[in-house]
């Protein structure tokens, strides 16, 4: 821009800022010039004292006052509005919305007030500043580079290599010392107690079989689950119904006669011939894909859907994955009924529960 190049700071005498004839704006502009800024356009948007200006001033003032009103309303609501939870449709349900409304209005009022002030009432300007993003002068680059190289010379590592080697060798273990407590403290053997391959259904120390229980700890009789029904069951041990045994939740399904027939045939094929008891089958509820509870049981199609990634397992075909990203069937729990008439696990699961991992056999 022509003005810009004409009045470029380099080619111009700096103004004497103490000159009493200069207006404040002149000094501001001089300051800007010293930062390589040329104010090329500076214009009041509104003629002072006009109707338009007064209207805008009133508008901004109204916004600020709105903020005051809204903020006061916020405080009043915060203190006096009933806020404790009550069942139903009481006024407490409006507490949070009212707080949000008043706080939002207060903030928007001040925000748009400031914005209008800045956008409409302040003079408009166009300034041009030089970027100066050229690299430093070659001389400076050279000087800095040489200085840094000289640092190395002064240290004399090249002449005294032993110092360098010993420093590196000495510092390496120090770095390891910093990392060791972190890694050592955090690391935890995933195969401790064979935990990845056992569940709460593993027989007790005396070989006693673990009962299947409900979420409230009661054992389960076959008559508890109707045909076409399913029940989430847990190992009947301490903390069996808790996240301590997050790999143990199991789905006990009572199949209808013809489905059970198909299911038994499928079990036979994979060597799980005796895993069912009557028309009852138990499959791990933990999806073999990402570990969500795969528990959307469709009693007519006998599909089991996982709601996280939509893997679908066909119960009548040994819970084989038939759709979606899961690649492994749900492990089956071998079950039977003990002499008291309650379901027990004949043994632990014979396959690994839950999401796949590298060393899963």
């Amino acid at each position, binding site marked *: 821009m022509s003005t810009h190049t004409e009045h470029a700071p380099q080619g111009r005498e700096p103004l004497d800022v103490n000159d009493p004839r200069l207006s404040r704006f002149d000094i501001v502009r001089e300051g800007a010039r010293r930062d390589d800024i040329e104010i090329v356009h500076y214009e009041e948007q509104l003629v002072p004292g006009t109707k338009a200006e007064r209207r805008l001033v009133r508008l901004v003032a109204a916004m600020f006052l709105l903020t005051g009103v809204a903020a006061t309303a916020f405080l009043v609501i915060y203190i006096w509005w009933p806020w404790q*939870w009550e069942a139903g449709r009481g006024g407490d349900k409006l507490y949070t919305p009212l707080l949000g409304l008043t706080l939002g209005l207060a903030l*928007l009022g001040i925000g748009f007030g400031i914005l209008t002030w800045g956008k409409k009432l302040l003079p408009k300007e166009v300034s*041009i500043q030089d970027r100066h*993003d050229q690299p430093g002068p070659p001389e400076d680059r050279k000087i800095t580079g040489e200085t840094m190289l000289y640092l190395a010379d002064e240290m004399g590592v090249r002449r005294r290599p032993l110092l360098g080697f010993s420093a590196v060798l000495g510092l390496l273990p120090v770095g390891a010392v910093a990392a060791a407590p972190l890694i050592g403290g955090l690391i*935890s053997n995933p195969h401790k107690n064979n935990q990845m391959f056992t569940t709460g259904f593993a027989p007790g120390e005396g070989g006693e079989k673990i009962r299947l229980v409900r979420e409230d700890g009661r054992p389960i009789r076959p008559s508890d689950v109707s045909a076409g029904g399913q029940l989430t069951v847990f190992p009947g041990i301490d903390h069996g119904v808790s996240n301590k045994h997050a790999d143990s939740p199991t789905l006990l399904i009572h199949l209808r006669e013809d489905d059970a027939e198909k299911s038994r045939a499928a079990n036979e094929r994979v060597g799980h011939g005796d895993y069912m008891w009557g028309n009852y089958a138990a499959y791990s509820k933990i999806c073999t894909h990402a570990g969500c509870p795969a528990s959307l049981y469709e009693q007519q199609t006998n599909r089991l859907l996982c709601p996280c990634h939509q893997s679908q397992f066909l119960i009548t075909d040994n819970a084989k994955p038939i759709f979606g990203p899961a690649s492994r069937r749900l492990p089956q729990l071998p079950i039977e009924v003990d002499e008291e008439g309650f379901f027990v696990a004949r043994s632990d699961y014979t396959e690994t529960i*839950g*999401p796949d991992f*590298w060393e899963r056999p």
Partner: protein
Amino acid sequence: MKRRKIDVAAVPGKAAGALDDRFQAATPLRKLLNKVFPDHWSFLLGEIALFSFIVLLLTGVFLTFFFEPAMTEVVYNGSYAPLRGTPMSAAYASSLDISFDVRGGLIMRQMHHWSALLFMAAIVVHMLRIFFTGAFRKPRETNWIIGSLLFWVGFLAGFTGYSLPDDGLSGTGLRIASAIMLSIPVIGSWLTSSIFGGEFPGTIIISRFFIAHVLLIPALLVALISVHLGLVFKQKHTQWPGPGRTNENVVGERMFPRYALKQGGFFMVVFGVIALMGGLFQINPIWYFGPYEAWVVSAASQPDWYVMFLDGSTRLMPAWEINIPIGDGYVIPPLFWPTVVLPGILVMISLFYPFLEARHLKDYRHHNLLQRPRDVPARTGAGAMAVTFYLVLTLSGANDVIADKFHISLNAMTWGGRIGLLLLPPLAYYLTYRICLGLQQHDREVLAHGVETGIIRRLPDGRFVEVHQPLTAADHDGHGELEYVGWVVPKKMNRLGALGPAIRGFFYPIEKPAEAPVSPGHPPVEPRAEREEIGSGESRR
């Protein structure tokens, strides 16, 4: 006793003098006051992210006063009756207390969550602006890398925060996260066990996530954001080409007062929008989800939107399991590819994109002028491709909700996503490329022949032609062709002169441009800029 008179008017001056004596602030402060920023709406998108981050810090500090990051089992006895008597973790109980027993706690929780969503959304929108306008080119590659990292660090912040309440939904998310870590070949089980302190879910993960969420990740975010802003400041903002704008200058407003006022006002507006959303729109109603129990799940279990693309990629992934028959046999589960490999590739592509593009175009110059997306069809097409890819994945992450509410088969949604993921991105590339070329051509046409007027004239020989209004006076050949300068070309008669003095009004002009009143001592309005200095070489393809 005689009181010494204090000259009130002189106090600020004296104080300033005293400060400068000690800190030598006058010169740097002048430089700061005198910094010029270019003005364009798209330059404010990054600020949305910055401001919502500030709101996140404010609300987050409030929440820490009441949240108890422990997984010890307690029996809930707060005021929310439908959960009273339920055993749950202390973390979930204290989250319920924040919602029901801390006055104003619920709005704080909701504002915190909404501003987290806004933070991530603004990062993505800002990133798209940077990408499509070429603002990442030399010398700003470092800031692009920092920005991409900010997305992923924000992603971690969001995920850890989402997990903290230990409700049924977030626990499911945590379960999937553990499965993702477990799927990493060789180290998976060790990594998971080390992070969770044993078998999932263990008893320590919430406290570990808490310290990550309130200390480690925010510290990293603050550090990265500071460097990001510092670099914007140091390298000066890019600007659009246009009258008077060159690769070597910045045309805009000085930072103070107008620019700073606008920033302050905008912060308040962002804060206000978050407050409105936090109060009026319910988010993450954890009291419906119940405590996390490994056997409880809900239909439509989704992560927050910025994680949804990973959920989508997981849903679309076919069940391809790789078995390695060595020893007992080893497995690479299908979960590994869409959740570990895919994000890894995405990170790498985004980090190195500026260098890849520079290498491909052999363009190693400094670029301070932005490019209109239409002028770089290949990049714009690639961007559209990436956006389409991301959208297909995100929609697939919600495909069960879509299937349910729009009565589409769930299996059809999955297959649609699989096919769409392969077909739509190339299609988006092709279409975008063609649209860019079309827009370019139209620009050139207008520059060569003028604006279409809509007036049809019949020539003496019977032909009909449309009268065009040339943009410039014809030279001696009778042609008035202008060169394209990488900026908006007026396409309609009423846009002629739009690059000149401003016309008042937001959506439509409310008055005719008045003669600018010139205050005494103020420089007069500049005439229209000359066009020789405009634009950098590369924008003229």
